[in-house]
């Protein structure tokens, strides 16, 4: 060959890249997108989005694409482990599954037969709470919850107690019709791909996007208007918007009387047991005041009054609830000028946004020529849309005033008439549900050897539903449903280890956790968490006697467990994404999905849910055991998914039920159900007809359908509760009414916090912060490529971010004499952590923030000890506390929302000081390296394992691709 001649490369443009493609559901975050897994030579060649799937419609985020690196992670556990050294040292011996299961059964069986509440069973970010909650109920312990208590229960409860739905999983913006989209506190998170896709479509159409967020990254970076609100003050901002809309008469009045309790009459009798409750007729039906007929049942009146003061026949004085609402928010306290200083948002910007909301809602009204029937039987020939949509998440949720703020956002949407209308925020099946949805948390007794008389988690509607003893003291280990957190609908996972350690309200015998890194980034104050898990009694026994933990990876928590039950990766397992649990539906109809094993485990690991069912059978739990004592689900979780029934002909999966697989929603178990899901790409989806898609809370067609599907107990309409009688019932108890009243020490707090209309108050932890010298708010968010994903051990994702810095406003940094890359101390009243600074402009001046959960402990996750994650990356959790300072009586409340128990991560206040010149440039605090065999860094060449087969066939013509082409007509 002539060495100077260019050798033209023959490129194979038609290689065969996969031997097989399997559809399953992603598990790299909480979105649950449909994925196609392309296999080559028995290995995973690549993963992409399933174009038919209702959640992601073919797209896939960074985490999803990096999923195969989690699957092939160096940190995977490979065999059951039994602790042989001291807790925390990480000394284990490998044991066989038989021994592991026998040991777990022995520990759990002893608890169940003596005092079942002494099992605390808490699961993390898993997606099988319908199973795990049921398992806890069959076991007989009330001490069960998942991670919602430290994630987003304020958003769930705030929505469910107001609209019967909630942001994210229970509702979504009408991305294709909204003209104005207002987003609060979404830190590139829930939900991931649908928001990105929605924003893309919204902006492609030219609609306006406004982001209320102290930090301008991610989604907020593409907002048309950025509102750099001061953390924890969103409630005041929303009140000011409501104030402006009320004053200008920009309210959808007819919507209020059709779909809400605005006209229901509230009893005005201060000091009595009925004050603030709704006046009702003999049948319990709320009364309204009709312009022509006076007091009539709410369902009957035709022209109700929203204002006035009336006297019923029995002399009771009543006012429409809207009167109370309007009087509150018309107060000059909530004028834009009055909230400007506290919120950091200028009065001019608040006024502009209020004007734009009104303009979008009332001047850009949408009319769809769709015939539909409301719950009264009245036919309509069109549907009116108010194209304003909203979404909110952790920036609202993670404050101790988040429940009320969340309710305020929903009230704002309702006043504009934009809930579940075209262009508004729309419910996703199986929501809306009754306000709040049933059931309620199971009441005691918690009898040895018996199941609970209900489910451990539920929604209380009054003091009678609390889990407290005769002295008003908590019955649950996390104090959920006690007077401290009466509506703790997701429990308080962040309090479990502390309370179990302190024996407050009682000690536990076994702590059983799944998929929650409670020894590190899921704990407030991880240093304390380590202490709780290792502290001993005088006799040398551990204060938390037994700790069983299941996970797929060698996280920071592993070293603290006594028994490790190694889980599979998400590509090695069956799962169901169930309507009984956390749905993946859309506004267009219900949907659910499965995971199927794409590859067989190459380690001695088992899917946790299958292990849980096996343990249930060994313990003889009802529902998991046949009469002869054998395992009712010998086929493991897949067997349960198909054959378990919850209520009449309802099961974990809604699709292809009935013996012939031709029923959806209700139907007998179908032995071929999973095969049907596989054939359909891993999911089931229904498409509601247009006449059932809107105003579902009052839509006869939809309500009948939802009842038929088993989603709601009856086809009764769902009336939005702007004024919350449920909250007032707790307040009345605090005022001294009823059999069940809060202990004296909680009385004032319950009274003040259980306001039936949204209030705003300074987040608890901030009280006195300025005076104590902690002037800055401190927040965290996850980078989009790691949001809600399990472990940044991922060798691809950590190439994008392996160290977090503390971001602060350029001007604030200059004020403090701090420059980029400088090492600083972050001090809070609870501790200090050292990190490096990065300055920026797009952040509220009084706020600092960092990427969360990048910082790792040395030796965890199979990363080398010199990894940036454990040397330069830091965890802000070290300066957060799970307990607020003692009150005058010495009592310490949880650092949580007083209504829901939501962990108040974002209430944190700090001060920043530069490190001294002689301080080591490495993060602190440091903990002893975990005893994990470090993985020697080595080149990774996954591609070598999945080389394509040459084909050199006929090429297809290239085609152009324009995203969102349907919007560009």
């Amino acid at each position, binding site marked *: 060959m002539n060495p100077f001649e260019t050798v033209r490369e023959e490129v194979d443009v038609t290689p065969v890249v996969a031997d097989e493609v399997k559809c399953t559901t992603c598990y790299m975050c909480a979105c649950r997108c449909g994925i196609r897994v392309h296999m080559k030579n028995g290995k995973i060649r690549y993963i992409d989005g399933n*174009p038919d799937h209702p959640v992601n419609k073919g797209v896939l985020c960074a985490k999803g*694409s990096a999923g195969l690196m989690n699957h092939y992670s160096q940190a995977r556990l490979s065999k059951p482990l039994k602790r042989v050294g001291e807790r925390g040292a990480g000394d284990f011996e490998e044991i066989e599954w038989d021994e592991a299961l026998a040991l777990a059964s022995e520990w759990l069986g002893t608890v169940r037969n003596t005092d079942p509440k002494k099992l605390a069973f808490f699961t993390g970010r898993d997606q099988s709470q319908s199973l795990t909650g049921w398992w806890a109920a069959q076991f007989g312990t009330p001490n069960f919850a998942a991670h919602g208590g430290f994630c987003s229960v304020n958003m769930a409860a705030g929505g469910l107690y107001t609209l019967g739905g909630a942001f994210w999983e229970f509702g979504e913006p009408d991305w294709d019709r909204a003209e104005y989209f207002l987003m609060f506190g979404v830190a590139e998170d829930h939900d991931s791909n649908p928001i990105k896709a929605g*924003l893309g479509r919204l902006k492609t159409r030219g609609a306006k996007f406004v982001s209320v967020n102290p930090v301008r990254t991610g989604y907020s970076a593409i907002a048309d208007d950025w509102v750099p609100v001061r953390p924890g003050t969103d409630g005041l901002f929303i009140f000011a918007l409501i104030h402006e809309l009320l004053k200008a008469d920009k309210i959808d009045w007819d919507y209020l009387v059709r779909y809400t309790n605005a006209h229901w009459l509230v009893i005005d009798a201060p000091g009595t047991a009925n004050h603030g409750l709704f006046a009702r007729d003999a049948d319990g039906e709320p009364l309204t005041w009709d312009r022509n007929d006076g007091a009539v049942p709410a369902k009957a009146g035709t022209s109700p009054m929203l204002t006035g003061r009336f006297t019923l026949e029995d002399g009771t004085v009543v006012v429409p609830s809207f009167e109370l609402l309007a009087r509150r928010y018309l107060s000059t306290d909530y004028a834009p000028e009055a909230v400007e200083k506290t919120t950091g948002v200028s009065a001019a910007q608040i006024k502009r946004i209020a004007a734009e909301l009104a303009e979008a809602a009332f001047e850009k009204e949408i009319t769809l020529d769709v015939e539909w029937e409301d719950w009264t039987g009245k036919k309509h020939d069109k549907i009116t849309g108010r194209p304003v949509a909203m979404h909110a998440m952790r920036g609202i949720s993670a404050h101790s005033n988040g429940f009320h703020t969340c309710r305020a956002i929903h009230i704002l949407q309702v006043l504009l008439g934009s809930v579940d209308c075209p262009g508004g925020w729309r419910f996703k099946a199986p929501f809306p549900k009754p306000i709040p949805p049933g059931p309620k948390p199971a009441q005691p007794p918690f009898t040895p050897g018996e199941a609970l008389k209900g489910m451990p988690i539920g929604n209380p509607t009054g003091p009678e539903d609390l889990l407290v003893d005769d002295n008003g003291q908590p019955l649950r280990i996390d104090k959920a449903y006690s007077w401290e957190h009466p509506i703790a609908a997701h429990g308080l996972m962040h309090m479990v280890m502390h309370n179990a350690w302190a024996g407050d309200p009682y000690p536990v015998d076994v702590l059983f956790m799944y998929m929650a890194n409670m020894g590190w980034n899921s704990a407030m104050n991880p240093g304390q968490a380590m202490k709780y898990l290792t502290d001993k009694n005088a006799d040398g026994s551990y204060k938390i006697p037994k700790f069983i933990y299941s996970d797929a990876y060698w996280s920071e928590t592993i070293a603290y467990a006594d028994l490790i039950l190694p889980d599979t990766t998400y590509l090695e397992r069956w799962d169901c994404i169930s309507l009984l649990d956390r749905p993946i539906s859309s506004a267009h109809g219900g949907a659910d999905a499965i995971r199927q094993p794409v590859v067989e485990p190459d380690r001695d690991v088992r899917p946790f849910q299958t292990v849980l069912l096996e343990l249930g059978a060994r313990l003889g739990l009802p529902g998991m055991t046949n009469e002869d004592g054998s395992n009712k689900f010998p086929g493991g979780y897949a067997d349960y998914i198909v054959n378990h029934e919850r209520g009449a002909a309802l099961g974990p999966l809604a699709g292809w039920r009935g013996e012939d697989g031709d029923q959806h929603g209700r139907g007998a178990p179908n032995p071929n159900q999973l095969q049907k899901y596989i054939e359909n790409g891993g999911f089931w989806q229904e498409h509601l007809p247009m006449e059932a898609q809107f105003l579902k809370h009052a839509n006869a067609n939809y309500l009948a359908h939802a009842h038929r599907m088993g989603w709601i107990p009856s086809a009764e309409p769902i009336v939005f509760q702007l004024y919350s009688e449920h909250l007032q019932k707790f307040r009345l108890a605090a005022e001294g009414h009823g059999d069940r009243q809060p202990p004296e020490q909680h009385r004032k707090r319950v009274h003040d916090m259980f306001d039936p209309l949204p209030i705003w108050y300074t987040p608890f932890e901030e009280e006195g912060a300025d005076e104590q010298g902690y002037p800055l708010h401190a927040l965290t968010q996850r980078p989009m490529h790691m949001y809600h994903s399990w472990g940044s051990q991922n060798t691809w994702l950590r190439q994008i971010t392996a160290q977090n810095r503390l971001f602060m406003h350029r001007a604030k940094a200059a004020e403090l004499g701090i420059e980029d890359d400088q090492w600083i101390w972050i001090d809070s009243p609870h501790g200090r952590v050292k990190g490096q600074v990065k300055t920026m402009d797009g952040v509220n001046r009084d706020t600092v923030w960092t990427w969360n959960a990048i910082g790792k402990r040395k030796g965890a996750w*199979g990363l080398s000890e010199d990894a940036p994650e454990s040397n330069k990356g830091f965890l802000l959790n070290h300066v957060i506390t799970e307990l607020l300072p003692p009150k005058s009586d010495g009592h310490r409340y949880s650092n949580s929302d007083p209504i829901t128990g939501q962990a108040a991560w974002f209430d944190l206040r700090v001060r920043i000081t530069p490190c001294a010149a002689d301080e080591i440039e490495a993060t602190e605090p440091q903990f002893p390296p975990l005893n994990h065999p470090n993985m020697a860094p080595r080149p990774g060449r996954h591609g070598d394992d999945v080389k394509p087969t040459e084909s050199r066939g006929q090429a297809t013509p290239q085609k152009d691709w324009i995203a969102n082409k349907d919007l560009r007509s």
Partner: protein
Amino acid sequence: MTSLPQTTQKKLGLVIDLDICVGCQACTVNCKEWNEGGHSGPLTDLMATGPDPSGVWFNRVHTFETEERTVHFPKSCLHCDDAPCVTVCPTGASYKREEDGIVLVNADTCIGCKLCSWACPYGAREYDEDQGVMKKCTLCVDRIYNPNLQEDQRVPACVSTCPAGARHFGDLGDPDSDLSRLVAERGGYDLMPEQGTKPVNKYLPPRPKTVSEAEKALKAVGMADDGVGDAGFFARLVDRVLTK
């Protein structure tokens, strides 16, 4: 030195919409994932679990702030018409395809001299230290014509995966194509045109802010003169006849 084709039959490239890119890294990771086993794979990861995790990526997202906004800027090879990375190549390994304009590296003849990475003004070349060869974006040449893939996959991986729909792909040599028209409508621009490389890829700039800084506020209706009293509000509400 390696010569460029006089003309190419097509000018295939990417159009990236900076108005809706949220910087999520979906494109960079899906690119890496596809190309691991693709024409120029593997995309070696050097210190996968170690102190300096780094490896080969064909596409990277840069984030920076301007006075009034945060911009996420994905960057990969721009498949330039006058690609200096090609003309500088001493072995002919770096070349531009006559049929579609895609710039590729022939790993068999690349000697890893890195001249091309010095010549590229965009920093779009990726040296694989482990294998000693230069690698770069292939515009998924092994996807876009591939009948062994489903139709939805016959676009570059970064395009099909983009959740926000911020990436478009096609022939920018046809001025009448929908893609070219989109570029024209949105004022699509060349990255660093002063370098004279004639990049094929285009960027769509962020749209002007729709926020008017002018005062805009709702007018209070029938309130007391000071605009804050609420007597007027309730007086009106008494008279408002509502229908259910």
